[in-house]
């Protein structure tokens, strides 16, 4: 499992290079072919026993974060989100501006707040890096610099906590699988894609390059099993294994693939759950629109508090997801 290391790397949509370098270095010796395409997707091929069909696996390398939009007169920086990030979760955080500059996102002290006027909105938040004025800030920071979270990974009891589990969890699963399989029945393509969080962009060019018959997206999906959500709104929950999706935004999962994923899990005795809501989208929607259409399925690790600097995953859910994906590759049964 590479989740700790992967989660601590910064890789906001559009700047995934450090994540890609980390993965590439470790899986290159295991792949028959590996390349980085013009958009930055990392694609590794493991040849199968039969050359006639191809299975594509995909996980996205990018994470949500922020980008500098303005340098203000007082030397602070204004930022806007990259991907689906709410301003509430960035307040009071240390952040990394670019590669090496530490900043903090402070907030009006409670002593000086006026009732209802100190709203948490992007336009009210500033990154402070210790610059005295605009000139000093401009010497050190450029407009468009990425601003990322710096949360360290932690394992406590049965839980992992950290940033960017969506979708470094999927990346780690794919790395585990390529490491642990022998020659699969079909050619299997492990793709680590860019820019999922900004509109499923990297995945748009993957199918063209590898012509898959079926694609399985390995994601990290939202779990809602917390005291502030009624049970019917949970979508997924922790501790009962990977979530198998039947439909999400922009795509009804090919029922044949959905059924085969379910029966594979059942036959192998791997615990799983159904994703109970259809909100959110994955690269499966993109693969289904690629070429003449690539039938696609989605398997996800349930995770609480995604799209924040600190999410929580159950170690068993990770393990069972990796087992199921390995089983998918080794049996080749999702190939239609």
């Amino acid at each position, binding site marked *: 499992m590479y989740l700790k290391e992967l989660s601590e790397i910064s890789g906001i949509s559009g700047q995934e290079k450090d994540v890609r370098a980390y993965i590439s270095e470790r899986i290159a010796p295991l792949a028959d072919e590996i390349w980085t395409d013009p958009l930055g997707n990392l694609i590794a091929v493991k040849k199968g026993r039969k050359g006639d069909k191809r299975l594509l696996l995909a996980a996205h390398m990018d994470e949500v974060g922020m980008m500098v939009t303005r340098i203000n007169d007082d030397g602070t920086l204004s930022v806007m989100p990259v991907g689906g990030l*709410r301003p509430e979760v960035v307040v*009071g955080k240390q952040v990394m501006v670019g590669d090496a500059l*530490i900043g903090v996102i402070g907030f009006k002290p409670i*002593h000086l707040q006026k009732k209802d006027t100190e709203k948490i909105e992007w336009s009210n938040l500033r990154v402070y890096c*210790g610059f005295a004025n605009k000139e000093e800030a401009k010497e050190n920071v450029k407009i468009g610099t990425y601003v990322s979270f710096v949360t360290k990974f932690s394992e406590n009891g049965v839980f992992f906590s950290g940033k960017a589990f969506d979708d470094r969890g999927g990346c780690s699963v794919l790395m585990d699988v390529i490491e642990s399989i022998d020659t699969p029945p079909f050619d299997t393509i492990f793709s680590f894609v860019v820019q999922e969080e900004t509109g499923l962009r990297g995945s748009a060019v993957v199918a063209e390059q590898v012509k898959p018959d079926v694609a399985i997206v390995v994601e990290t999906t939202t779990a809602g099993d917390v*005291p502030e959500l009624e049970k019917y709104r949970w979508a997924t929950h922790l501790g009962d294994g990977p979530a198998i999706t039947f439909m999400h935004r922009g795509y009804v999962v090919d029922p044949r693939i959905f059924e085969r994923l379910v029966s594979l899990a059942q036959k192998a005795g791997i615990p799983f759950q159904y994703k109970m809501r259809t909100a959110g989208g994955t690269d499966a929607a993109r693969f289904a629109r690629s070429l003449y259409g690539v039938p696609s399925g989605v398997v996800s690790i349930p995770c609480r*508090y995604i799209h924040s600097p600190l999410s*929580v995953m159950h170690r068993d859910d990770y393990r069972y997801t990796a087992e199921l994906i390995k089983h998918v590759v080794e049996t080749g049964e999702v190939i239609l």
Partner: protein
Amino acid sequence: MNTTELLKFLSRLNGPSGFESDVIQKIKDSIEGDADKVEIDRMGNLIAWKNPGAPSRVGIFAHADEIGAVVSKIEENGFVRISPVGGVDIRTWLAHRVRIFTSKGPVMGVIGVIAPHLTGAEVKDHSFDNVFVNVLERHEDVRVGDPVILDVEPVEIKGKLVSGKALDNRAGCATSIKALKLLKKYVHKSAAAFVFNTTEEVGGPGAQTSAYKLNLTHAIVVETTHADEKTAEVSEVTLGGGPVIGTGPSCDPDFTDLAIKTAEELKIPYQIEALPGRSGTDSDHIQLVRSGVKTLIVSIPLKYMHTPCEVVSVDDVELSARLIAEIVTRL
């Protein structure tokens, strides 16, 4: 320990008001050998004496407690609810780790924020009424009343600033510790009691009761104050601009003049903060102890007070420590 390391060391300590014993003990250890006499009184305050027995008696007060929370309700499945200790804007705690100090040791928790996929466009105003802590381990050990503290690792910014939790008032504690160490090299005729007191953040009895016990002629309150805020409610104080000397009804005018003259004589840059009513520091209480105490407030400029990313300047701490030591020698 240099000043940066001292600030980070003190920021990492955990001690919300009423639960300061670990902080007090660690500060006691760090001033080992610097004072002539050290004691912890029955309200939990640490008192370190220099030159005890002299007739003129000055207390140098820095509160050692910090804002925090306590567990107020146990929910199912390893979740708990919390209530504030002192002035906490819970919106600044979201998506942070916390430590819950149970009777069987600390456990890690997360203040979780539900992903936008599940809340949709409905944006909830977060408050202590709806925020929850996701306890990650040994949740069966957690009891109502257990203290809760943010888990924040302090960082250096630009090599001259430190950011972290609890710098209000661990920056004051660092200043006091440095002043005490400086005084070892100075001759002074008054008795100086360095007090690291409890319970300031809840307006508690820490400073007031030790002031009574010490029977002081003078008191210097070492605090933190808002820096770089642009509002008429607070004076113009700049981070990195040097010690802030308070002026107003909770400060003795002559003692304040002595502080200003000392700073000018030594060419220590200083800033003046107008405190038109109550100062909001322990000075409000210390001043009224016994037949009255002549008080002085020296504050460290601090940005983003009561958030997980308070910021102070190392230079401000060092200059304030020197100023305080020099003032003590002039009493």
